[in-house]
């Protein structure tokens, strides 16, 4: 298993007040994402556990793109990966952020 953690500073907090949410299932080509509103409003941390080693730079790019688009300030995001492709990861992250905004 490979563990990756990325920390970002955001320009604003994610809107809404949902304390936590989960989306997705750990299955082949899929992943689960747990989002918790526990960090300072300008901080975001994404921690990933994946059985597919060696894709750190891809994860880094996908996470940076998500942070730039969603501005998920205040969220600690934990990912259990089942070998999802980058586009699936990106969609799930945005889906998770939407659940937290509800």
């Amino acid at each position: 298993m490979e563990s990756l953690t990325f920390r970002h500073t955001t320009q604003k907090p994610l809107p809404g007040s949902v304390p936590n949410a989960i989306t997705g299932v750990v299955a082949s080509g899929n992943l689960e994402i747990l989002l918790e509103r526990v960090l300072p409003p300008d901080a975001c941390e994404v921690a990933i556990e994946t059985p597919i080693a060696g894709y750190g730079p891809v994860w880094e790019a996908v996470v940076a793109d998500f942070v730039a688009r969603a501005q998920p300030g205040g969220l600690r995001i934990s990912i259990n990966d089942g070998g999802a492709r980058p586009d699936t990861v990106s969609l799930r992250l945005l889906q998770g952020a939407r659940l937290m905004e509800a």
Partner: protein
Amino acid sequence: MAGAHAASTDPDALSWYEATARQRVVALADPGSFQEFLPPTERRMSPHLPLFDLPRAFDDGIVVGRAALDGKPVLVAAQEGRFMGGAFGEIHGAKLVGLLRAALTLKPAAVLILFDTGGVRLQEANAGETAIAETMRAIVDVRAAGIPVIGLIGGRAGCYGGGGLIAGTCSRLAVSEGGRISVSGPEVIETNKGAEEFDSRDRALVWRTMGGKHRRLIGGADAFCTDSVSAFREAALDLIGRAPAFDLATLEAEQARLESRIARFGDCRDATEIWARLGVNDSEAVPAMDTRAFDETVSRVREADHDAR
């Protein structure tokens, strides 16, 4: 509560087969009533899977909690069939056993188990086998306390292995066309006995041998549902209302019924022969029947309804 904010959910439109365990629970219960025990934020994950370099799930593949069903308090467990085939590992099993034991104190109107499992998780097989045994024991205790335990089966993993054994100890079972109930799965039988005995790639054979319609016709399941969350909700409410007594007379009737089943159908080579002997006029037509036509067929089969399974 993480579960309450999972994407959802019109119970009429939501396919049970396609839904995740979380979607099923939230849509099955009265709106907003589900409260999860040990939610994903608690991170009660398998201690064993990292040894095999396998990913874990925050809930170990099972969602447990309390909810209201038509205003009545119930305890609910839902297996996630897409995470490791919904298999029983140590934490997964402990959550189900804990929920059943809590029923003795909380005295809900029923315990609902939303099965979606291939059986024991092979990477933690000893813990998983123990969990199966403990779950069966706990169900017996809950039923002896007068609380019905209702199994709902319609997920993509079906209900196999130890899950099939546990289902056999429930008060009542509801199943859909997509649901399958058995102990050894198609691939297991083929591996051990050969493709001549059972061809696991023959989907029609698999479904007419282990599928929901067959189980309903021979009385192995007590309700047949269309593949929607609202149909399973309706079935659960109906079955809670007519759970059998759990006493010596029921168990002796069950033993007698199983003995007569093997005597009557033991020489059949295919499920269609069993259906014909049960009195189904056009047994070849059963797999293609819609729910209404199938319900009419079931209503003419005497063995389909019996307090002993």
